[in-house]
């Protein structure tokens, strides 16, 4: 390596601009193609993902020399690396890192079954040259790279301090997303929690989006957020649009060969035009609690340091949520088994509540509200309200309601109640939930109700 090091070029390896590799066969015929992913291995080596056995691979077995062009996505300075192919790896940390990159592409384009990393090709870099100094006619407009995470320890310290003072789950999730914006400069964030069976994640809080999206779901394993949950490892992408474009291009090629059938694009929650997305697992006591995701319109917005900081935040959040859940169950034990009846107040207007027993889907005046456990909770509460005129409830009696089919352990009831409360607030529904004390809440119904339950098929 000449006067420049691979570290100087670190932004070139975020995958924002496709790299180019030139090789030559033993008879002197050149070959040139684009690379999907290049990663730095150490100060002298890079790794290139190999998904398809190609002419490049065959050339390298005959002639190990190659020339690789990379572009810094912030300055658009271009570099040429003269490299020598050293070896191919099919396991180990370098392979795993590239495999995560490839799997992320597969996840956003629905190709998990066919698009896989075959090998990581390791090259030794013998020389780095700047292709072209910035032209005076085209000054570097990216001298100011724009806002990135404010990685100051004071901000992180203040956020964790605020989280440690939160009295309940509602405050924890609100403080998380608001604090990321205020103290760390992260304008778009999404906190999702794992459901009881460990199969889906649901949004409990977000910041910076037109709609809070409370209750939106993603299956574990689907998309970047689902992959983070499935593997309990962080994923940081600085080139979302490029990645999705590449993934869908490859998908079309598989479709044309009939190896996969045309299917839906996986809907990723968040900014439609995000360039950077970073998602980290929120773990407590070795268990996945949820996934914290941040996004930016800016390319390569997040660094490894940012990933470390967000992981700290996610760990603190997960610990706080687990502690709150444990406290809630202990508190429940000291409460009476049912809430005090309270006169219902006269509502205005009429709201048609339609509930589908099959999956708990609940609609208010034809508009989707929520499904699953949260939908069943609301249906149960409204039943009590209509039959017994009750408005005050305890978490304990809800927890014991057999119609909710809550699991015996880790029922996440408080998360579901909070999800329901936030969803009702977000929809400005005439039905609200108001916390009245630890383990207690009130159903506030400002409308007449028409309850319409649809039994499950075969029930």
């Amino acid at each position, binding site marked *: 390596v000449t006067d420049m090091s691979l570290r100087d070029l670190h932004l070139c390896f975020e995958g924002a601009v496709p790299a180019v590799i*030139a*090789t030559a066969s033993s008879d002197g015929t*050149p*070959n*040139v193609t*684009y690379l999907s992913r290049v990663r730095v291995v150490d100060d002298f080596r890079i790794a290139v993902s190999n998904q398809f056995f190609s002419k490049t691979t065959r050339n390298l077995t005959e002639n190990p020399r190659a020339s690789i062009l990379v572009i810094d996505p912030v300055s658009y300075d271009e570099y*040429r690396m003269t490299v020598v192919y050293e070896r191919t790896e099919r396991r180990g940390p370098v392979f795993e890192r590239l495999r995560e990159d490839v799997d992320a592409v597969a996840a956003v384009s629905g190709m998990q079954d066919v698009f896989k990393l075959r090998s990581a090709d390791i090259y030794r870099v013998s020389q780095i040259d700047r292709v072209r100094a910035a032209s005076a*006619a085209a000054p570097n407009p*990216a001298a100011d790279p724009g806002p990135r995470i404010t990685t100051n320890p004071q901000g992180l310290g203040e956020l964790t301090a605020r989280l440690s003072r939160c009295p309940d789950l509602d405050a924890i999730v609100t403080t998380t997303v608001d604090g990321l914006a205020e103290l760390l400069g992260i304008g778009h964030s999404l906190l999702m929690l794992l459901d009881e069976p460990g199969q889906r994640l649901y949004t409990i809080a977000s910041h910076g989006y037109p709609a809070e999206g409370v209750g939106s779901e993603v299956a574990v394993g689907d998309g970047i957020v689902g992959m983070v949950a499935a593997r309990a490892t962080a994923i940081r992408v600085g080139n979302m649009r490029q990645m999705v474009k590449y993934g869908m291009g490859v998908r079309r*090629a598989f479709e044309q060969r009939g190896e996969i059938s045309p299917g839906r694009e996986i809907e990723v929650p968040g900014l439609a035009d995000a360039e950077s997305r970073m998602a980290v697992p929120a773990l407590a006591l070795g268990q996945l609690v949820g996934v914290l995701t941040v996004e930016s319109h800016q390319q390569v917005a997040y660094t490894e340091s940012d990933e470390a900081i967000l992981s700290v935040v996610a760990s603190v959040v997960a610990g706080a949520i687990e502690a709150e859940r444990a406290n809630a169950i202990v508190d429940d034990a000291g409460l009476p088994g049912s809430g005090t009846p309270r006169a219902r107040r006269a509502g205005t207007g009429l709201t048609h509540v339609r509930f589908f027993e099959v999956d708990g889907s609940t609609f208010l005046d034809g508009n989707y509200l929520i499904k699953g456990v949260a939908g069943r909770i609301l249906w149960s509460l409204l039943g009590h309200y209509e039959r017994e005129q009750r408005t005050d409830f305890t978490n304990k009696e809800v927890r014991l309601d057999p119609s909710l089919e809550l699991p015996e352990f880790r029922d996440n009831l408080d998360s579901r109640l909070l999800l329901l409360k936030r969803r009702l607030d977000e929809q400005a529904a005439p039905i609200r939930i108001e916390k009245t004390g630890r383990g207690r809440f009130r159903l506030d119904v400002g409308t007449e109700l028409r309850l319409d339950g649809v039994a499950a098929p075969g029930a």
Partner: protein
Amino acid sequence: VLTPETVSFLEGGCSCAVATVDAANEPYGTRGWGVTFVAGDDVRLVLDAADRGAMEDLAATARIAVTAADVLTLRSIQFKGVARSVEPATDGDRERVARYCDAFFGNIVAIDGTPRTLLDRLVPTDFVACTVRVEELYDQTPGPAAGASMPEQPS
């Protein structure tokens, strides 16, 4: 080798990656700045005049490969052949570069939102034009068929 459809693709606003090779079989990567059909299987490829590596390779071996990729669909075609001549760019070549940059960068701006001012930093200040006799064509679209030889079709 070249069909009208292939020519139309190569002359469009595709990215253009170029490989040359020296007498010692050392490959070298660079970029092209516009492809124009000449006649038969000949195309005119504009290159950076300051790119000594490419110029020396072409003088030594004349072997060249070019991959053109549609930045929206990633459909890619690689042609391989021999450089028959390299000469200073004409006014027509420079106009071709301007049209090429407008088309290629226009696609990137539209799709990726990259500011044009950033993309302009890649553009060389002076050019040469290389006439290439195309001998082989490959489908280079990312996917399981990448690298497959393209069948010859009647022009």
